[in-house]
């Protein structure tokens, strides 16, 4: 079982991201369970959503307390909410930011993790380019597909194409595809740097 926790703010598509990640996994024939941790649903308030993916039926319904992967949709949460709670040393982390971890004040923190599993992606900028709206979830799921290999990009695209229509679908798919390429290039660069 692979467990993902997504942090963001109301209005950024956090819950939709978890749902569509589950749809992407389902499209690959796996069992998946997505659910939100509802607070007071307000624009801008911290929101958490969860997604479990497994080759077997998923029975547990507790919140994800020891995630295999974290997706942070809003970097302003990093020092406000205990977003890293329970993240394993071998876990994956994808943060939506145009800054690097040092600039985010996390340089020391990420040293405790496997470097090639910890990345930032400017998902909001990509969303603005392709959608004209600061909704970073498609780019983050595209980036997450490249980072973790948990689902394929084409499954993420299938999920967004099933949820949205017309320009919204195209924009989300373009953002996911760009982020996928961005993260894959980053990972290759990290691998080269480590090989040197």
């Amino acid at each position, binding site marked *: 079982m692979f467990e993902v*926790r997504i942090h963001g703010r109301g209005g950024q598509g956090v*819950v939709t991201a*978890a*749902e569509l990640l*589950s*749809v992407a996994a*389902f*499209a690959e024939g796996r*069992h*998946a*369970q*997505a*659910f*939100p*941790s*509802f*607070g007071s649903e307000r624009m801008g*308030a*911290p929101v*958490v959503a969860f997604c479990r993916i497994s080759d077997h039926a*998923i*029975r*547990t*319904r*507790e*919140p994800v*307390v020891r995630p295999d992967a974290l997706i942070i949709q809003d970097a302003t949460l990093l020092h*406000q*909410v*205990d977003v890293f*709670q329970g993240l394993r040393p071998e876990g994956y982390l994808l943060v939506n930011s145009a800054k690097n971890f040092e600039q985010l004040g996390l340089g020391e923190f990420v040293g405790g993790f496997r470097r090639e599993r910890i990345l930032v992606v400017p998902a909001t900028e990509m969303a603005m380019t392709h959608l004209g709206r600061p909704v970073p979830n498609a780019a983050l799921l595209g980036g997450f597909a490249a980072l973790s290999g948990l689902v394929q990009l084409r499954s993420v695209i299938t999920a967004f194409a099933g949820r949205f229509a017309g320009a919204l679908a195209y924009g989300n798919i373009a953002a996911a595809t760009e982020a996928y390429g961005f993260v894959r290039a980053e990972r290759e660069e990290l691998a080269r740097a480590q090989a040197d």
Partner: protein
Amino acid sequence: MLRQIEGSRAVADAVALCRPEVICAYPISPQTHIVEGLAELVKSGALAPCEFVNVESEFAAMSVAIGASAAGARAYTATASQGLLYMTEAVFNASGLGLPIVMTVANRAIGAPINIWNDHSDSMALRDAGWIQLHAETNQEAADLHLQAFRIAEELSTPVMVCMDGFVLTHAWERVDTPSQEQVDAFLPPFEPRQVVDPAAPSSIGAMVGPEAFTEVRYLAHARLMEALDLVPDVADRFAETFGRNSGGLIHPYRTEDADTIVIALGSVLGTIKDTVDELREGGMRIGVLGITCFRPFPADAVRAAVAHARRLVVLERAFEPGVGGIVTQNVTMAAPAIPIYAVVAGLGGRAIPKTSLAGLFQAATADQLKPLTFLDLDRSLIDRELGRLAADRRSGPSAENILRDLGAVASRIG
């Protein structure tokens, strides 16, 4: 067709396949997505003929359902929490009149303090309303129970409440197999009302009944509910024949055959309990689970047979009777009075029920170190601080707000 969908959507589609003719509802979280889904199906013409009535309150929702059902229409509504309480008088009327209405309750806590999250306080408050109450463990079962609910309700002329955990199921996306219209039509015959208001053959329904016959009318309602103890498993068997899936019935035992300790619960927490039990069994603990699907009528014989060999029972309650204790516990005690029993109140108002807490609880239970009534993961320090304020100051203010101030930034919590 197997789909990855939201629980509310799965239920809306299942209800639509039952061809309801009148749907009346008032929005309240976490039920709203269900009736929104149905409203879309009616508006698009996918569900026809069906009248969707936007009512002004839950009291009106149940009243319209009563009127529709009395006129011979298959009627459906859904609600939760304060909405269920607000329609209480009409809920009792629906069963008193013997009208086979089906209602989804997306289980949610009851205020005050206001709380939108999941527990079983709402449907438990109406357990004596004369309705059949079925509890879903998964979204597949929630969808399946609606197909069975209409059949059970109409065969007995008794309303059925399908309870599914709010948010935990209604807002969870998981795989659900939705049957075809042909399959559902084969399983669920058209509604043949036992009584109907008909201008061509005028009669009245709901006359005043005095002391000379009230007891007899009530007795018959009780007898109808007791008949459900045979019908509910029978419909589940016929469902399995048609759809090839086990859903519904009275109870679901899991690894109970050789169990010294049996954990009893209702609803979606059963999945987390089963995972915990599997892990504890690897360490040699002889523990099993009994899921109660049908809470009203209470399947006392089936429960007794399932737990007779156990040395102790742990009942995980998602609601409780203040001043008394566990609700399900009392029913189980009535069924199996000789077996030591521990009541555990857990998951009130959306409090997460983690496997680690359950494992610790079950270990304490098997060592017989539990008190008769336990509140799982109770934060004693918060209570002691408020008790201190109550003792120190007559004008100590509202407890809920005081405790929230003690907690500080609530939004930073994850579980």
